[in-house]
């Protein structure tokens, strides 16, 4: 629990889908309160890396650590199940397609985790949901069903749902990729707000401008390896590697 220890650490991560090697030895370290953006072309492995941190993908090699606890521990059966459920409670994850529970109201979507997993009294959970919804600007939608919300609203509720577990780190997997352009800002605003509150964040994104604004560090991935990493100013203005330059040229000219 020392302050020097990274919040998230990945060592030598390897992952293959069949014959395709998607991650080919990734090292990554995220300090407490740090915001790391991961960019790269489709198929570069950035989403797989993020999903591996949450153990939605099982690595073929390497280690993932969260705040001094190994995520992909060598446990089996029920023992691993108990371990991973505990670890996941400490990581919030936000998906490209929101994945709100359509049969539950916004309130129930948010309170379900704290009530069932942490035994939080329902009144407390409701107060928590209310304050989180106010934070993301959706307090009036507390009793709505997800089908009544726009994409941007859904994603903000999904962020509130993840925050309700009071996670140590938030993982964003292309959180704005499925949104209409005019709805992207409302989600980005919420993420910037979290950044200002020093939430530790890993953000997989295709939005270079947003990555530049919010991230402390940018990782450029291609072909399952980290090609280059550094502060956004360096990566975006003076990239060292040819691969990075080619990629950015395509994006920034678009």
């Amino acid at each position, binding site marked *: 629990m020392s302050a020097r220890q990274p919040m998230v650490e990945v060592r030598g991560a390897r992952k293959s889908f069949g014959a395709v090697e998607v991650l080919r030895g990734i090292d990554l370290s995220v300090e407490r309160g740090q915001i790391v953006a991961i960019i790269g072309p489709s198929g570069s492995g950035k989403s797989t890396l993020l999903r591996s941190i949450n153990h939605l993908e099982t690595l073929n090699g390497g280690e993932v650590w969260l705040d001094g606890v190994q995520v992909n521990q060598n446990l089996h059966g029920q023992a691993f199940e108990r371990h991973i459920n505990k670890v996941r409670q400490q990581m919030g994850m936000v998906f490209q397609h929101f994945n709100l529970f*359509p*049969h539950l109201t916004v309130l129930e979507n948010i309170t379900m985790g704290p009530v069932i997993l942490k035994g939080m009294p329902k009144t407390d959970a409701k107060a928590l949901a209310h304050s989180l919804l106010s934070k993301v600007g959706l307090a009036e939608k507390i009793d709505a069903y997800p089908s009544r919300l726009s994409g941007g609203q859904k994603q903000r509720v999904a962020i509130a749902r993840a925050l309700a577990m009071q996670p140590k780190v938030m993982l964003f997997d292309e959180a704005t990729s499925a949104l209409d352009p005019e709805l992207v800002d409302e989600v980005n605003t919420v993420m910037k707000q979290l950044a200002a509150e020093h939430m530790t964040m890993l953000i997989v994104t295709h939005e270079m401008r947003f990555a530049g604004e919010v991230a402390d560090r940018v990782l450029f991935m291609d072909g399952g390896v980290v090609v280059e990493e550094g502060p956004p100013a360096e990566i975006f203005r003076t990239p060292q590697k040819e691969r990075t330059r080619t990629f950015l040229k395509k994006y920034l000219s678009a």
Partner: protein
Amino acid sequence: MQRVFPFFVEAALVTLELTALALILGLVAAAFAAAAKMSRPAILRAIGTVYVSLFRGTPCLIQLFVLYFGGPQVGINLEPFAAGVIGLGLNIGAYMAESIRGAVMAVDRGQTEAARTIGFSRFQTLRKVVLPQAARLMIRPLGVNTVALLKGSALVSTISVVELTYTAQRFIGSTYKPFEIFGVAALLYMIMVYAVARIVDLLDKRFAIA
């Protein structure tokens, strides 16, 4: 015709009773079979698969004959009605198992992932997130299965269960009016099928996701 009509109504009620009991048995068998087929242990999956392929891969009529005529040879002595309920129930259960499994698999994988990343166990995820959504998706297919069961129940007339079809056949001999007799039986089946379809519609509306 007016003389025999009360017998038809009574027989239709037997058909309904037969259908209702077979439906209950079928749903129970289907729930177990679907759960087995989707479980992790290979042996359970195999049991589920064998049950479903056996009962979907052979004629229901043969299954009824094996149970009712073949049963006594291996020490299973059943009354016609009981054999009818068990035979029809096990048969429709195999179809319903696939309806249930289809509905569960139709729930977006992202739902499971979202629940798991919050920290819910496999079981909690199934109970709180997947099944409530799957339950709504399986209403229509199970309704289709129930209509098939209701109409298919005519088969048990061959093992002398006194239901609608059997009753109709019985009156041919005394009336010599097969067109009218079978026409009335058909009409009664249609009324019952319509009623089932209405109930399924109501359930579907009632449980629609807002």
